[in-house]
């Protein structure tokens, strides 16, 4: 028994089966990430003043990762086009480039960006103690200028004992009254050597930048984590199509392999598109 239209198109719809299937699947994926992005909007609108951080992510690295993903979307189209022209050698190289881009993206995310966050420390100050840490927060000036108050001190945790934290401050807390600190920087400023002592009884909550730290990081890790799993899934599928097992399919029926590359390429573009939303929402806005 054969299922019709697995490779050839049905005349009245002009489509083969998997192409409809993948678009439906992507519609479902849009709703999945749509649910998460609407959660982001909900949480951000609801966030108390000062609770939604800005400028904590590494924008140049994020930009580079964005460029890598876009590049991989181009190479996967070229891979597909090569198959359509029956140039397997070129296909093989373009596919390798696509896979490499995916792997680089994941490595940067998991081996560099996430661990950097896990080493970064933040302490939310209790409302009644905010005045005590005015020299790190600069709220008098911010209130005057109509800016959102700062309620968190961030940096690297130098040491701690049962009573207090010693924190090597981020520039934003080292020079809180510097107008240059009112806006996030494109190139991240390194942690200063200025050490602040924060008493634990003044602290509302202090953790590394983990999902538990605040709803911003909770959304960041959840959404980039789920996105990363999609990238991983795409890479695994591409590896399968790049291995010799797929060459045998190519020799039997090149159009079939081209169709497979087309639908997985559509998925890959979608994963890329999700990142195009993730990047501004978390890195820039």
């Amino acid at each position, binding site marked *: *028994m054969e299922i019709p239209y697995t490779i050839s198109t049905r005349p009245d719809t002009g489509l083969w089966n998997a192409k*409809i299937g993948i678009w439906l699947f992507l519609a479902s994926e849009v709703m*999945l990430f749509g649910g998460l992005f*609407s959660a982001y909007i909900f949480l951000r609108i609801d966030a108390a003043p000062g*609770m939604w951080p800005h400028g904590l992510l590494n924008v140049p690295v994020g930009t580079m990762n964005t460029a890598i993903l876009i590049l991989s979307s181009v190479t996967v189209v070229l891979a597909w086009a090569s198959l359509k022209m029956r140039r397997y050698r070129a296909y093989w190289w373009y596919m390798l480039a696509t896979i490499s881009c995916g792997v680089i993206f994941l490595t940067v995310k998991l081996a560099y960006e996430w661990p950097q966050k896990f080493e970064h420390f933040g302490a939310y100050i209790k409302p009644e103690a905010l005045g005590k840490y005015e020299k790190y927060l600069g709220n008098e000036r911010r209130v005057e200028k109509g800016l959102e108050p700062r309620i968190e001190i961030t940096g690297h945790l130098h040491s701690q004992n049962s009573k207090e934290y010693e924190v090597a401050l981020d520039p934003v807390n080292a020079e809180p009254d510097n107008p240059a600190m009112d806006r996030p920087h494109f190139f991240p400023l390194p942690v200063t050597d200025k050490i602040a002592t924060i008493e634990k009884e003044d602290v509302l*909550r202090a953790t590394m930048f983990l*999902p*538990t*730290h605040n709803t911003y990081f*909770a959304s960041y890790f959840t959404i980039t984590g789920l996105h990363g799993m999609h990238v991983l899934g795409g890479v695994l599928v591409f590896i399968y199509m790049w291995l010799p097992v797929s060459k045998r399919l190519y020799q039997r029926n090149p159009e079939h392999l081209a169709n497979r590359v087309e639908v997985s390429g559509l998925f890959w573009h979608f994963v890329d598109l999700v990142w195009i939303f993730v990047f501004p929402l978390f890195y820039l806005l």
Partner: protein
Amino acid sequence: MDASTSVETHHEPHEHDAAHEHHELGWWRKYIFSTDHKVIGIQYGLCGLVFLFFGFCLMMMMRWQLAYPGQAMPVIGKWLPYIFGADSMPDGKMTADFYNSLGAMHGTIMIFLGVVPLAFAAFGNFVVPLQIGAPDMTFPKVNAASFWAFAVGGVIMLVSFFVPGGAAKGGWTSYTPLAAFDDTGPGRNVVFNGQTLWLIGFIFLITSSLLGAVNFITTIIQLRAKGLTWMRLPFFVWAQFVTAFLLLLAFPPLEAAIIMQIMDRVAHTSFFLPAGLVVNGAPVSISGGGSPLLWQHLFWFLGHPEVYVLILPAFGIVAEILANNSRKPLWGYKSLVFSVLVIGFLSFIVWAHHMWLTGMGSAVSAFFQTTTLLISIPSVIILSAFFISLWGGSIRFTVPMLFATAFLPMFGIGGLTGIPLAFNSADLYLHDTYYIIAHFHYIVAPGTIFGLFAGVYYWFPKATGRKMNDFWGKVHFWPTLICMNVIFLPMFLQGMAGMHRRWYDGGQGWTVSNDHTIWGLTGFQWNHPISWAAWIMGLAQIPFIINFFWSIWRGEKVNDNPWEATTLEWTAPSPPPHGNFVHIPVAYRGPYEYSLPGSERDYTMQNEPVEPAERTRRKPPAEPVLV
């Protein structure tokens, strides 16, 4: 070529004879790990029926506690502690926690493991490819994956009864922040606890319905037989088509919410947890800043379309059976099709009518009130078209027809009692009372489940080549119909009297302050007839179970089209072989050509070509053309 590779490569353009491939399959590949849509449909169907009965058993246990709160359960009471653990039923008396588990799991199992698998996956899988003249689904392996994802999800849900603390207790809606702290703390595993397993099980169920939905829609678009244009599709196919879209698009936001609730429970984030939460008298160490309302929005974004996932396949089944047994075309086919499409669309923008009590604000409420009332219009069109279809028909009261006709008033009661709930002023009073329970059960229990029973009796001959016994079918039908009404009608009264739906003591304590009687019984005392009717209805399912299995092997043998129906599935042999049709069918006409004027028989099948003589009978003489 051995069996496994022939299956792997059957989509390749090979020259071998595809028709006899299935003979080479071993027993496991043929009946268990099958990729044949009919086998998968039957697997889904049997699992769905078992889960329906299991979910009903949970409810029969709860009905004891509601009618006789705090008393030891007779007969099975002393065995239950050995099954569910000594903490759940000490001395045969149900604990409050166990009662909550039963309630949450009754809802979850009935909806996601019982009705959806049966209505959508089982009937959809078995019937849709046959009705559209297709050899199978477009993606047979994906189809099998869908079933196995469902099976894993079901097993996880069942396993959750046996972990320390028992199954999920937060209701089928799992509202946060309550659900985020259920089953946590000392003695509870981080992952292997009721609520977390509920969430993980759901991920599998969502995966299953995603794979199913993609497959159904693609199959209906791509594999329709030659000549089977969109407006010649049986209404059942349309209903499944819209249902598949609902599942495809409504489930993922719940999956997003479930991922976030898992994060809240396992990674201690605060997606759904506001700042300053105090649990068991102690402040919890969380960042806060989350929103409990967010869960409700995401949950009901699935939850409401889900209601239509439950009812639309039943509409489809009932439509087929009404046309077949009234021996006349379905009245208003086009309005039915457009109504079902409109319902599909509107069902995505009514969800917040489950949330009137949350204080969303009057502008939001006004919007959702309007859309909720709008969606009743296509529903009424469908129900009216069904009633009108009966008018002037020569009705055959077969067993499927009994269930299908009973569906109409039952669904009508369920639908009409929903209208007061659409207005937030009325709902403020009725919210979370037994009125709600009665309302939605009238839609899904005597509504959808009657539709499903009708479908089982109707398509049983196609699946087995044998008919289910008529007499025992009627013995099943009448007590079930009566008991359903004895169960759910008094609940309207209880609800309007103010009884809350989640009371563990069945309202006994509340009766102390409110001894107002309804027809001689207090709200609490009404639990007695309701519970007895529930148990009698349990007994009334025994004829069905025996009839079902007996008929598989011993039922009366029938021909390929025992109901003298018109749609394409009845042109296939019963049971259909692998690949379904002996000759690939071609459709020449609409799906419900019953009692065609001038025709010898009172039914004309879709694959019967239109004779020239018939063409002149059907159409008025053409206007003379002026050259």
